[in-house]
């Protein structure tokens, strides 16, 4: 079985191949062929995923670490112990991520083949999409922080390229698009700074970047459960009768198994089938081993042999960063432990000039990780780029800016759950940021008119939910919401793309009809915005499939029973509520904030439904809109089904008949249990009926409220105003929301302007004026002209004036009086050099003089 995991590198290689083909030969291929290659590459990653999934299921969910043979020892300098291999980790968490990335990715590729029809850079688009998939899969499957960072930067790059994809659009739109791309890039760079610092700190502290080492046990608790014969009651694959005695046998760790443990081969195999001898992880023997498995399987039901149930067989330096952190944090004051290479490690980490306690270091690492996550997962304070990123084509918004890339930050934090678990302060900050983001983005979404901007702010808000869940330690709920959100938010984005497409189509249609009557159609074409919800209305009848699927997506996002969003959002709410009961007041604010955010979600989504689909058409274009082609609607239908059923992946226990008895099919807490093999600190929370009822009531109330305000064709009044805007009482609330809480303006004031000023100041005043004018004219020239003149006319020094008026005027002004029209620049450089010489000598002599 384990040889199955060896195909993991393919999951990166295949989309890379697609990228290369479409990038270099794409312009020569026709659309059909380009899209075929793109879709095939993407679909084949999904097939690879299926294999990996079955590998895990058939192997008692035990992780594998897969080396890529040709990149053996990716970065390696043995003399200083620097070793960063190119390894992929196949465990339940990474396979979960790969699952929805490849699946949603494939659907979006299919959708894009229709959506991008007629674009001059059709092949390029698919090249970028495939490249994105490759980097995303590097991100989620990398077994060390550096690979994670490579993927992290790579998806950022693809996002940058795809947001600015339509840079050449006419009428200034192209410029806006490229600005949005740049904003995304810069905001992400700030986040990347956090990631890099976290990586450096981790490497300094632990001497490795590997998340897990071969033969390391991720979750001892689950291993013991497996060894004692039965795991957590998972569906079917759990080892049966034989497991107990074989497991006991395994715990004695026979010599053969010891050998396997010492083996530093590629797969982190901890469990093997009963008849198996020491596992040989060399590639040559892989097949033979697989045959052995086949034979033993045919002999009857065999349980696993557990080699190790915890990490006592590994020395400190043989562990990955998470296990090392836990061991260090458990140490008492002054205690040390053997590294395994003769040296010892203690609580205090030495940073050259100073020492820090391991707790402080972990807090720093996690805070830096959080900074990275706020960039990639669009949280306060770095979220401003995501709404602007909607300038990209809609499939991009759906794939990158809703379903996959933006969840990378949450994934990273879930992956590092061991660290966050140890750092209470960081978890607190994570929670606050998550709740604030969920609330403020939900509020802003209320006042937007652009159909995609509403969804963008909604995404930011939902990511806030996930981050808050990570903060309160509900890692399972965060992952669960990530998956369901990927389904219904991708559905909503693709639906909005279909709407935009339809309206645009309708606009062209209307346009042709009226061509004879109006001479100034050109002007009309410039101002019409197919994304503005004020130009829509009544699309229910024109686009029935889009409407039906969009409605399902909306109800799922609003958290209505029994749609997917209900289950996942409820789990977050319930877990944060439980945390509130356990931890006291502050977490209570968390649960309350999330309740409000959930109600806001239902409100703005129903407002959107009323504005777009209900009522009567408000423009010619909406009147003439038509349903989209099949390649666009089929993915919608598939995603709608998943939005409906996705919640049953993780049915909570104690829910009774409300799950339609589907526990029998899906099992209870399936996802949480499955993830628990990789996420140590995951806790399976119980169902909270009260929470479910309150959240359901809130959502329904919000929908009814939205229906009262926007329903019955009142969505936009005759003056083109939102009803909330028209009503003086609610106008300030709406205006603040419509202005996006002035975040961008505040940033402009706070950062961008001072930054530009600083750069200009350094360039013009410090580097040039200071050395050129001040030193030359004041020190040398004035020195020649006597100190008396200097004292009598101090302002002639030009410092004050130079700082205010800049170099040009200063030069002229001084030179006017001194007949020095042009400063001798070479000599000024020489003066600067001499000053540098004196400074260096003085600085180096100082310690000698003191000593």
């Amino acid at each position, binding site marked *: 079985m384990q040889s199955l995991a060896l195909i993991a590198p393919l999951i990166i290689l295949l989309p890379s191949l697609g990228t290369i083909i479409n990038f270099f030969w794409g312009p020569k291929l026709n659309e059909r062929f380009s899209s075929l290659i793109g879709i095939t590459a993407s679909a084949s990653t999904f097939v690879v995923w299926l294999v990996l999934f079955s590998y895990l299921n058939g192997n008692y969910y035990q992780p594998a670490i897969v080396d890529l043979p040709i*990149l053996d*020892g*990716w*970065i*390696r*300098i*043995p*003399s*200083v112990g*620097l070793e960063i291999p190119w390894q992929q980790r196949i465990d339940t968490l990474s396979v979960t991520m790969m699952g929805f990335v490849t699946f949603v990715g494939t659907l979006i590729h299919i959708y894009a083949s229709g959506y991008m029809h007629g674009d001059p850079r059709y092949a390029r688009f698919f090249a970028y999409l495939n490249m994105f998939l490759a980097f995303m899969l590097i991100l989620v499957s990398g077994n060390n922080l550096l690979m994670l*960072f*490579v993927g992290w*930067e*790579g998806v950022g790059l693809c996002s940058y390229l795809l947001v*600015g994809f339509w*840079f050449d659009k006419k009428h200034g739109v*192209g*410029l806006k*698009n*490229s600005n949005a*791309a*740049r904003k995304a*890039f*810069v905001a992400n760079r*700030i986040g*990347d*700074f956090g990631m*890099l610092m976290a990586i*450096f700190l981790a490497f*300094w502290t632990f001497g490795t970047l590997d998340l897990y080492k071969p033969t390391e046990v991720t979750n001892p608790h689950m291993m013991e459960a497996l060894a004692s014969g039965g795991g957590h009651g998972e569906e079917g694959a759990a080892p049966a009768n034989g497991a107990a005695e074989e497991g006991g046998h395994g715990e004695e760790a026979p010599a053969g198994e010891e050998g396997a443990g010492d083996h530093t081969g590629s797969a982190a195999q901890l469990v093997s089938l009963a008849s198996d001898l020491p596992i040989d992880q060399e590639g040559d023997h892989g097949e033979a081993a697989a045959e052995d498995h086949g034979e033993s399987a045919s002999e009857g039901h065999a349980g696993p042999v557990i080699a190790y149930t915890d990490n006592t067989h590994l020395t400190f330096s043989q562990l990955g960063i998470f296990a090392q952190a836990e061991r260090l944090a458990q140490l008492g004051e002054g205690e040390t432990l053997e590294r395994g290479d003769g040296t010892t490690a203690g609580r205090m980490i*030495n*940073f*050259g*000039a100073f020492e820090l306690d391991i707790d402080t270091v972990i807090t720093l690492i996690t805070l830096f990780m959080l900074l990275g996550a706020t960039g990639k997962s669009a949280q306060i304070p770095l979220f401003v780029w995501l709404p602007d990123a909607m300038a990209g084509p809609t499939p991009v918004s759906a794939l990158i800016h809703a379903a996959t890339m933006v969840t990378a930050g949450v994934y990273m934090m879930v992956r590092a759950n061991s660290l966050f678990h140890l750092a209470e302060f960081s978890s607190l900050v994570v929670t606050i940021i998550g709740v604030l983001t969920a609330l403020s983005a939900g509020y802003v979404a209320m006042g937007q008119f652009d159909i995609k901007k509403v969804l963008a702010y909604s995404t930011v808000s939902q990511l806030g939910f996930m981050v808050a869940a990570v903060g309160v330690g509900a890692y399972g709920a965060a992952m669960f919401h990530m998956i369901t959100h990927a389904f219904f938010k991708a559905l909503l984005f693709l639906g909005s793309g279909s709407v935009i497409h339809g309206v645009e189509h309708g606009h062209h249609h209307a346009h042709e009809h009226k061509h004879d009557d109006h001479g100034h159609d050109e002007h009309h074409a410039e101002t019409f915005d197919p994304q503005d919800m004020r130009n829509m209305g009544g699309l229910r009848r024109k686009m029935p499939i889009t409407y039906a699927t969009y409605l399902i997506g909306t109800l799922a996002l609003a958290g209505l029973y029994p749609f997917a969003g209900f289950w996942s959002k409820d789990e977050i709410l319930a877990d944060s509520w439980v945390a509130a009961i356990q931890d006291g007041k502050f977490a209570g604010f968390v649960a309350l904030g999330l309740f409000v955010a959930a109600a806001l979600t239902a409100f703005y989504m129903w407002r959107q439904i009323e504005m777009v689909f209900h009522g009567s058409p408000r423009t010619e274009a909406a009147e003439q809109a038509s349903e989209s082609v099949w390649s666009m609607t089929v993915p919608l239908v598939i995603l709608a089904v998943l939005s409906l059923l996705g919640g049953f992946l993780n049915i909570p226990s104690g829910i009774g008949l409300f799950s339609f008895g589907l526990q029998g099919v899906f099992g209870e807490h399936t996802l949480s249990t499955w993830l628990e093999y990789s996420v140590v600190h995951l806790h399976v929370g119980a169902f909270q009926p009260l929470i479910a009822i309150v959240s359901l009531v809130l959502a329904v109330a919000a929908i009814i409220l939205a229906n009262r305000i926007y329903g019955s064709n009142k969505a936009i009044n005759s003056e083109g105003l939102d009803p909330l805007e028209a009503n003086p009482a609610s106008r300030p609330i709406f205006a603040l929301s419509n202005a996006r809480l002035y975040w961008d303006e505040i940033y402009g004031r706070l950062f961008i302007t001072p930054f530009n000023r*600083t*750069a200009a100041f*350094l*360039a*013009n005043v410090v*580097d040039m004026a200071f*050395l050129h004018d001040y030193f030359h004219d004041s020190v040398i020239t004035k020195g020649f002209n006597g100190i008396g003149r200097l004292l009598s006319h101090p302002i002639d020094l030009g410092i004050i004036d130079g700082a205010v008026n800049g170099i040009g005027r200063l030069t002229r002004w001084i030179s006017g009086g001194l007949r020095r029209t042009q400063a001798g620049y*070479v000599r*000024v*450089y*020489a003066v*600067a*050099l001499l*000053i*540098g*010489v004196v*400074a*260096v*000598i003085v*600085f*180096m*002599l100082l*310690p*000698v003089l*003191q*000593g």
Partner: protein
Amino acid sequence: MDIPSFADLNLGVTLPAVFLALGTTVLLLIDAFLPKERRHLTAWFALAGVLVSFVLTLFNFGSSETALAGMFVADSFTGFMNLVALTAAAITILLSIDYLKRTGNARGEFYSLLLLSTAGAMFMASANDLIVVFVALELLSIPLYIMAAFRLNNAKSEESGMKYFILGAFSSAFLVYGSALIYGATGTTNLQEILASIGGIVEAGSSAIFYLVIGAALIVVGLGFKVAVVPFHMWTPDVYEGAPTPVTAFMSVGAKIGGFAALLRVLVTALPFLVAGQTVEPVWQNTIMIVAALTLIVGNFVAISQSNIKRMLAYSSIAHAGYIMMAVAAAANPFTADFAARSALIYLLAYTFTNLGAFAIALAIEKDDGSGTDIKDFVGLARSKPVLAAAMAVFMFSLTGIPLTAGFTGKWFVFQATMQAGLVPLAVIGVLTSVVSAFYYVRIIVNMYLSDGEGDEAAGATPLVNWAVYISFAGTLLLGVFPILATNLTETVTLLASVAP
């Protein structure tokens, strides 16, 4: 004093550099005797010479020997630096051939000068004696002065040469004065012998330590000028802008190779125990740290407000000197010295490929009269020259330090070395300024890909220039994806091998 026999000179290991230096003389003769219609072959002879020297370096690689009575050392450090310098020279030759022709300056002595300068950089990397450091520095610099002023009847080029000459000569006077002081304090110019005699001077606390410290300071100044670190950077933008573009390209790389090689050699091999008071770190560490921090800040910030690509790359090269300077600061700690030296080597290699590539593209869009090097001239390049634009984008990403490009590999090792030496504040400044650098590098990409406008037809993108671009491009990506190719070569590099601390 014994007169060394011919065998003692151990000429074999000096061959790569000596061959190149002698070859230039032959090249001058060849150029003079070639019939006029065959003069274009000179460049190809030069390229052949570079290749021969490259092969000779490979044959010698990994040895660890001294030659020429201990003045010359051939070890892995020398070998790696030689490879980098020769790669730079080869790419520069490819860039120069058509450029000189179209600007009307196709004269054969250019290649002799280029090779002499390269030989100077190689001698600097193998210098084991302060005399050799000085002579090699001048061998590197004097041809560069001439090359900077190589464009006839071009006021900017002449001005560039003159400024470079005056300031360069001025700064090398400081270097040689510093060497004299160190000689005065220790009575020797050999780096190992200096190392051996320093301990006694420091312990005795004699006044000779003043000579030593001032001498070290002046050597830092002289070499700091060559590699363009703040506050000795003022000449860089002016000279880079005025010099012919291939010369700028070579200058931005070659001078740094030689300068950093000598800086590491002198500071780490000869002066690691130049301590004062109770500290363990040598007195020059703090100075280098502050210089590195200033360089990073000034270089990266000032680059933002530049509008000419050559000036922008000049400030960018100042900033990159700052990153390598971080490695030099890290080399002050005897325990991390070797790793820091290796990281500097890898950074130099990465920087060589990337920066030469960027200059190659700038050269391709430059007009014959030297105009067309504004950042605005990159607008729309993705449409007119998609391949060049894609390559430029990769170079810019590499200079920013995005993963899977050479620039990231270099930064990764340098930051690692800095952290290992415990210079956390410096590492933070390095990471922060590299975030800032994204602003001006990405502006080029935005202009190429995301701005409206007709692209430049890139008249200078002749097949040879394209080849230079491809080579740089391949190097940038290869080093980014397979860093092990370079790290394997640096495995045996050690500057402290001769004396244990």
